[in-house]
């Protein structure tokens, strides 16, 4: 009951944040306040869940969603307070977060037992880098999606496409690339300790590696071919799509032992 209430409250806060982000002017700052409240609500939800099931939010789709909803808010706040142009990214980024939040209200909240092999500090590093990566990817989606939207609506290169935004977008992607690499390395160490193999090309690992590879391709294409900017933005959206599938689809669609259940 408490979990449902917090889940809906968090989704409501993100909804309010998204609505505020649609407005220009001083009220746009409200989006950050609502995002901060939403992140706090989801942090409380993670704590409540942790106390109830006795382990961290690693296993079920619901747990993965709520923990990411908390960290997505934190990453958005950190970036938006450091980079002024990031506020323009919130319109699309927060829309994605709101959809994820609404989805989390509908999924099963049944707990699952934590496999004994999950008691490994590398798991924390693996999950932590993954969450920062997804947060940065969502901000990049916000920029790229917003620019693509403007381009489609106005049939010309958006005015907001300043050199600064373009630079921030690709710097964020490079940082996301770094965090994804750290996630893969930490995950390999964890898997080696847990299952006695560091890489096995299971569906989740394959999906995560393809995400990293698409990022590498996007970064090189931009440098090598000087691809048109809209194509670069499309690649950023594709990276987010793959990352979303890796986080919220593949672990729950495949029966591979990546969840440690065996």
């Amino acid at each position, binding site marked *: 009951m408490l979990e449902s209430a917090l889940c809906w409250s968090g989704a409501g806060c993100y909804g309010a944040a998204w609505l505020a982000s649609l407005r220009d002017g001083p009220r746009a700052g409200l989006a950050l306040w609502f995002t901060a409240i939403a992140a706090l609500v989801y942090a409380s939800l993670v704590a409540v869940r942790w106390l109830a099931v006795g382990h961290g939010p690693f296993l079920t789709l619901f747990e993965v969603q709520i923990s990411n909803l908390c960290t997505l808010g934190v990453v958005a706040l950190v970036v938006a307070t450091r980079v002024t142009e990031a506020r323009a990214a919130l319109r699309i980024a927060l829309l994605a977060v709101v959809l994820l939040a609404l989805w989390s209200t509908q999924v099963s909240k049944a707990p699952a*037992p934590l*496999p*004994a*092999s999950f*008691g*490994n500090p590398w798991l924390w590093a693996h999950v932590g880098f993954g969450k920062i990566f997804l947060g940065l990817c969502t901000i990049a989606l916000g920029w790229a999606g917003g620019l693509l939207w403007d381009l489609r609506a106005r049939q010309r290169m958006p005015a907001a496409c300043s050199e600064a935004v373009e*630079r921030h977008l690709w*710097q964020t992607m*490079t*940082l996301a*690339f*770094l965090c994804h*690499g*750290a996630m893969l*390395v930490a995950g*390999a*160490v964890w898997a*080696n*300790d*847990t*299952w*006695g*193999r*560091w890489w096995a*090309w299971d*569906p989740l690992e*394959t999906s995560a*590696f*393809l995400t990293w*590879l*698409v990022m*590498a*391709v996007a970064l*090189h*294409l931009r*440098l*090598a*071919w000087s691809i048109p900017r809209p194509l670069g933005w499309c690649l950023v959206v594709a990276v987010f799509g793959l990352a979303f599938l890796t986080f919220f689809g593949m672990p729950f669609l495949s029966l591979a032992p990546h969840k440690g259940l*065996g």
Partner: protein
Amino acid sequence: MFEPALRRLASLKLTAALLIAFGGGVLAGAFEGDTRSWWCEASLAGLVPNLLAALAVNPRLRRQRGLLVFHAGLAALLVLAVVSRMTRFQGQAEVITGEAFDGSAVTVVEEGAWHRRAALAALGFEQHGFRVEYGPHLARGRTHSEVLVAGKALDIDDTHALDTQGYRFVLTPNKGYALIVSWLDERGGAVTGAVNLPSFPLRDWNQRNEWRTPAGEVLELALALPRRVPDDRAWVLDSAAAGGDLVVTVAGAATTLRPGATLTLSGGRLRFEGVRMWLGYRVRHEPLLPWMFAIATLALAGLGAHCWQKLGVRERARGFARDGSGARA
């Protein structure tokens, strides 16, 4: 003469094309269930000279130390991954409590051409008891296993593997009962061995196996367990508590033997010595893994330094813009 060729080899367009080819190979392999296609290996083999050539001819890449370390690290990682495939070993072993690990009984999953089988055969440890905690509805909890290595007792569990002489033994969920039987032939000779039964409690309904006697007769050996596994409460599977009767079926006729009992068969007698348990391990030998980890970490540190420098440059540019004069505060 070589420079134009080197420049072509160092092309970033070639890098992107090879990465796309590699990604396509990984994706195709994921659907086919085999990611080690020649397509993937060819693209990876192309990436190493591409990277090395880029490092040689691209002064911009060399100037950016962070990027240089990242790319050199990636190239080293690829080379190490190839060498590692030649030296590594992966297998599965079932070790019976009270018995020493037998390297010749390991089921080989993967073995590189440069792996020395003699090193595996030289490994020695003795399996002592183990315990597996279960929650209700067969929810597996922690596993504790005690082994004796060079006279020293060691505890291993789900998060602590056994590392000995470069080999790593990781616990698997597989474990089960082992029937210890002796074959006493008509000339007075005796041979004792074990017949491992299927994984328990996963296949508690099928605790039987076939065994051919040295005289050539095929027997079905089944374990009659004293009690069923509780489904509604927590319990512990303890190897020290292993017990039960042996049911021997020969040509449709079943005979139950208690520990110490014998059964006369064609060509000799079968003596049931008792019940022990076996524990499954994943055996891994990958001597280059620490180097691969170190190089991967170094490569990431290089990329991190590059990002830090780029962000730092931006911050400094902002400082200049705020000052107007370009003077630092």
